[in-house]
């Protein structure tokens, strides 16, 4: 698997700034300091980094893989690679962008494996995931939306996961996926049009043409 270098990840155009990206920008300097402390073995700094970024990393992996246990395996691997980078971390690099890129690439690798072994996971972890009770709590709408999201082609799903769910700026999402903004917009539009058609039964107001 090819992981984009930290140097490349810092050349991202900051033209678009959705809400979460602004939060990430505000935390970027703090992340650099945390990475410096993490490289020196500061456990507290590592805990803060995990708390700050683990949900985003696991969330993107879940959207791409559709399986919470596989998603957590990917998120764990991404963080292990982050720790390995700590000693060489450049302060201006964004931890969030770096993690998203690694997670995205790991997920593509996982999706392209000839045989995906979704079930061969730590049984303790598997038990901690969605229980029958929790599964019953999921609404029918959520289940249908999730099913249709997972039915999308992987690149459309990744684009939607980054821009809609993770609220990553367009330029940053395009850089993470190593595509142009125009290609990103095309993936997003195709994905959303497909979802709109497939979910029209839930919301009739999804369909219709403008005068």
């Amino acid at each position: 698997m090819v992981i984009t270098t930290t140097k490349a990840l810092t050349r991202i155009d900051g033209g678009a700034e959705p809400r979460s990206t602004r939060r990430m920008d505000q935390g970027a300097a703090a992340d650099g300091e945390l990475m410096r402390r993490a490289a020196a073995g500061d456990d507290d700094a590592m805990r803060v980094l995990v708390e700050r970024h683990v949900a985003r990393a696991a969330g993107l992996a879940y959207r791409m893989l559709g399986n919470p246990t596989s998603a957590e395996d990917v998120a764990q691997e991404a963080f292990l690679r982050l720790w390995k980078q700590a000693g060489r971390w450049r302060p201006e690099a964004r931890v969030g962008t770096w993690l998203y890129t690694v997670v995205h690439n790991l997920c593509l690798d996982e999706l392209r494996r000839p045989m995906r072994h979704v079930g061969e996971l730590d049984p303790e972890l598997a038990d901690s995931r969605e229980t029958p009770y929790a599964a019953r709590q999921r609404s029918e709408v959520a289940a249908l939306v999730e099913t249709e999201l997972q039915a999308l082609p992987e690149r459309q799903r990744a684009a939607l996961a980054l821009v809609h769910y993770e609220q990553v700026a367009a330029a940053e999402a395009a850089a993470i996926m190593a595509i142009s903004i125009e290609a990103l917009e095309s993936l997003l539009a195709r994905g959303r049009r497909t979802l709109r058609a497939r979910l029209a039964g839930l919301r009739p107001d999804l369909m219709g043409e403008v005068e």
Partner: protein
Amino acid sequence: MNDEMMTRERLGALLDAYGGDLSRWPAPSRVAAEALIARDPTVHRLLDQARALDTLLDQAPAPLPSGILRARVLARRSPTLWRQSLGALWPFGPVWQPAMAFALIAALGIALGAYVGGPDRLVANKDVNESGIAGLDGDFDEDDLL
């Protein structure tokens, strides 16, 4: 993109791509779109459709990561940092290479030391050398060179 370049078609394409929450849009397009929406009510239906899909998508959030994931991520940090510390001492490649070379040199030194002998033998060798040098000094005859 400036205000003049924002057409209904372009607005529709952006709504298709980014949805009805303009905070997700690229900033330049956002400003131009807001202006078009304010002056052209016919695009509101497009906007409403995009927002309806956003609402549906938001009803399927990703599950929160487990506490076990956090524990696993943090549990695997120490060996990495240990290797990083070694790496700081030897940044030219795998640390086992200089470590192995050092161990080999140390072993050779110990073996050589055991073979040559202890301090007494070294003193004896020193005496021999000094007498040899004395012999050269005493017995050397330039005629031998002829």
